[in-house]
């Protein structure tokens, strides 16, 4: 199905060599994402390095985490932008 010799863009090469450590599975990410998202929106200490690494390495989980953060911010009536920055900045 795939040819290994296709030309890669710099961004693709970068994403192919991401170091998403410490390891965390998608299942574990889903299990923890609710209280992680609440921490992000609350503005307090976040921690959880494995989960943060997973969200960088897994685009689907990352997309869903951003969505949850936006929804929580909307429920709280606050601007989601700072929370989304905290999510991506670490």
């Amino acid at each position, binding site marked *: 199905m*795939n040819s290994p010799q296709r030309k890669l863009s710099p*961004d693709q090469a970068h994403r192919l060599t*991401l170091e998403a450590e*410490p390891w965390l599975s*998608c299942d574990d990410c889903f299990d923890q994402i609710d209280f992680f*998202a609440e921490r992000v929106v609350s503005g307090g200490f976040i921690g959880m390095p494995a989960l943060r690494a997973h969200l960088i390495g897994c*685009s689907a989980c990352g997309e869903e985490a951003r969505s949850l953060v936006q929804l929580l911010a909307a429920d709280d009536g606050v601007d989601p932008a700072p929370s989304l920055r905290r999510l991506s900045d670490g």
Partner: protein
Amino acid sequence: MTILDGPELADAHPVSREAISREAISREAISREWPGSGHRTGAHTGAHAAPATSAGPSAPANDEWISLLSSPGPGHAEALAGLHQLLLRAARHQVSVMSAQTAGIGEVRRQELIGQAADEAMVAVLGKLASFEGRSRFTTWAYKFGILHAAVEVRRSLWRNREVALELLPEPAAVGHSPEQLAEAADFSEAVSNAIAVELTAHQRQVVMALVVDEVPIDVLADRLGTNRNALYKTLHDARGRLRRHLQDTGYLDETAKGVIP
């Protein structure tokens, strides 16, 4: 609260297709079981108000949600309806977030996706009530199911009639600034391409090229390959490790480089 952040928290595969039986409950069954929920039109006759469907100051406590949802009795039907409203809200939000991708599918199909995702999330939430530990608000915990199911539904819908074949997709254009940066980036890209050829197994090559280069959604690829998101991400993670080690050994990658997307 203890900071939990590791594989010891493994749940019962919430993102595995096998764990989510679409046939487990029909739209008609939902209409019977949860009158007054979301897109139904049945009259609401219960004497108890449903729990509020947002996480505002008036939202019920977590234990109230669990108590009402767990056993038949006063307020049970209203709690089910309230939960379905929460999941509709989450699914609608997720589809809205992905609106750029769903622009071509039409409003009718979009509403179908929302309803279907909320229904499937309802089954998943009710099946996992016992696993809710109260580490977050119940509403937040429920939202994540609605978001997951809506995102998966949208991705599958968008790729339903698309073939996963690299040959059909255009080659990416290189990006950069100065001639030196362009040359360096091209050099690294070529090194990664070579590392893919010499270091990865055929299965790893198939997975990383589809996920990262052709941007096939992980749930769609899981469907096509008969596996699940968890297994594919593990394959991607292991492949990245192999590529990084090869590139470090050949001097293309600093051992301290994190490789985080800019």
